């Protein structure tokens, strides 16, 4: 098993690096971070612009910049080099990218984790019910809502849920947390109170992501379950004299859940995208808003930092899913 993990890493790490390279080039080619400086009125002195360019390593060719960004080798200032744990200089004033990332990472991770979990859960439940009651009204209703969830823009639902939360707070006396990942006084909270604060703030955004994200997986689960239900071994299990409930639980469900595991990576990817949007709507201080903010400021290194983290998350989820798949399905063995 360990050998398999190592082998997979050997394959996926180059892919990850290639992805970072390709985005780096994209970022480099598409925008000039110094644009505003160059066109500023009153005009900024050339030396200032030059100094800024040096600070941001913009005076080097792209390949060299990438090399520096990745390894930091050949650099005297010591502020760059991912593999050394340095994220590079930011265009956003005195911001330390590393610092920002570490603070925001946990916040986004909570959202992505909760969203993935609940979306998967809802997907499995609705998919299985739909399959077992194929073509019934329940199936049609669930399928329709699934389609609706697929068609609904995340940002639209997020805005709707947020405003609904505010309205409910004003008119129904509820206490939905609609802004931010935590309350302003969070830093003073401890233990249970702090935990509950986090949870309450997670409710609305997670609900949003769950409703828009479950549909695709639900259809997949439904198809998987249907395939299993129509298989010969289910028929044999019944022919053995097992009760329907036992057949469902022990044979059908167990086997039908396996392929869904492989979708975990896709779910994480979708949850990340969703996080970017919901963090904007609910005004969270997470990696999502970090991304949009950095793009607006032409902060190339900050954007790269985000991409590295999201890439690692997606690839990691992929790996975990594969391993899990091997554990659940005895036909796959990694030796």
């Amino acid at each position, binding site marked *: 098993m360990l050998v398999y993990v190592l082998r997979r890493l050997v394959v996926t790490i180059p892919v990850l690096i290639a992805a970072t390279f390709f985005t780096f080039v994209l970022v480099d080619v*598409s925008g000039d971070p110094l644009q505003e400086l160059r066109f500023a009125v009153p005009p900024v002195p050339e030396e200032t612009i030059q100094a800024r360019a040096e600070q941001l390593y913009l005076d080097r060719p792209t390949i060299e910049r990438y090399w520096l960004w990745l390894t930091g080798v050949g650099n005297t200032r010591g502020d760059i080099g991912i593999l050394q744990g340095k994220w590079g200089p930011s265009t956003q004033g005195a911001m330390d990218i590393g610092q920002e990332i570490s603070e925001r990472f946990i916040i986004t991770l909570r959202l992505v984790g909760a969203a993935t979990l609940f979306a998967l859960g809802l997907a499995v439940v609705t998919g299985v019910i739909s399959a077992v009651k194929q073509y019934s009204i329940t199936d049609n209703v669930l399928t329709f809502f699934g*389609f609706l969830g697929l068609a*609904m*823009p995340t940002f639209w639902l997020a805005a709707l849920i947020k405003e609904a939360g505010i309205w409910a707070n004003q008119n129904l006396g509820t206490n939905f947390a609609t802004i931010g990942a935590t309350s302003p006084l969070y830093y003073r909270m401890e233990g249970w109170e702090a935990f509950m604060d986090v949870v309450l703030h997670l409710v609305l955004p997670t609900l949003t992501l769950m409703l828009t994200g479950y549909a695709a997986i639900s259809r997949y689960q439904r198809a998987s379950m249907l395939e299993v239900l129509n298989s010969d071994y289910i028929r044999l299990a019944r022919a053995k004299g097992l009760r329907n409930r036992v057949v469902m639980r022990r044979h059908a469900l167990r086997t039908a859940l396996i392929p869904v595991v492989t979708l975990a990576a896709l779910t994480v990817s979708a949850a990340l*995208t969703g996080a970017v*949007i919901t963090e904007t709507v609910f005004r969270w201080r997470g990696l999502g808003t970090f991304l949009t903010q950095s793009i607006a400021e032409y902060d190339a290194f900050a954007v790269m930092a985000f991409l590295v983290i999201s890439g690692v998350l997606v690839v990691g989820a992929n790996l975990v899913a594969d391993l899990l798949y091997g554990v659940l399905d005895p036909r796959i063995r990694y030796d």
Partner: protein
Amino acid sequence: MTELERPDVGLEAGQTLAPRSAEAITTEERTQLQMIVKRFLRHKVAVASLVMFVLIVLFAFAGPLVWKYDHTINRQIPSDQPPSWDHPFGTTRAGQDVMGQVMRGTQQTLKVGFLVALLATGIGATWGAIAGFYRGRVDAIMMRIVDVIIVIPILVVVLVLAGFTRGTTWFSVALIIGLFGWTSTARVVRGMVLSLREQEFVEASRAMGAGDGRIIFRHLLPNTAGVIIVDATLVIASAILVEAALSFLGFGIQIPDTSLGLLIQNAQTAVFTRPWLFYIPGFFVILIVLTINFIGDGLRDALDPRQQMVRR
């Protein structure tokens, strides 16, 4: 040993022993296209969606030609009006007719969707066909490249590129999305080509002297048409959602032009105070994507020859 007398089984003299084929009695002849159309028409939801979609396209492209207001600010328009006969979708605070806005926004959104589908199909199908046809090294490298692109969520890469280039016309947005949106098509076409190339007609073509290009483009790709069409509907739907998200975040189509995503962004806080500004554009996005998905579903069933005959 004497021969047993042959019994008289009643075969009349001269009766030919060539009875009618059972099939001739019970089935009609149909061409493949007719069968596909017939199967599609069985899906009432898909057909209704197709009708709805056509109506939306007419609304978006023919609408502005007949409707008196466009999406710009007009001083004669009263502001903040809920839907009325004069302004069926209401008006904005700044004095714009929402119907004109939605028409324009839908038009831009649809244009992006179609262009992306075109690009994705063009790039993706070619990519996938080449990879599937040549297999081996070529396939491995090409699919690795696809893997690299997929690592980054499409919205993220589009955001970055659109944000850095400040590409704000529908055309540039569509280009950007199309540049990265072809990966699913490539995978799907590659899968089909991998199985198709094993069939005899490939051997036959080669025996008749057809070169690789000819085989790929004249023989293999046409057979993947069904799969491509279904995938294209998915691509359009997802492209529309990406464009909307892009506009919502402020990196896509911007003022003075408009898009459905932009309209929703402007209406974020008005959900309960001026709901027509929020719900109508949202409704349009949902309707467009919904109908496209249903049509794609219907197409998939219609094109799949392994249809099971179980009735609901």
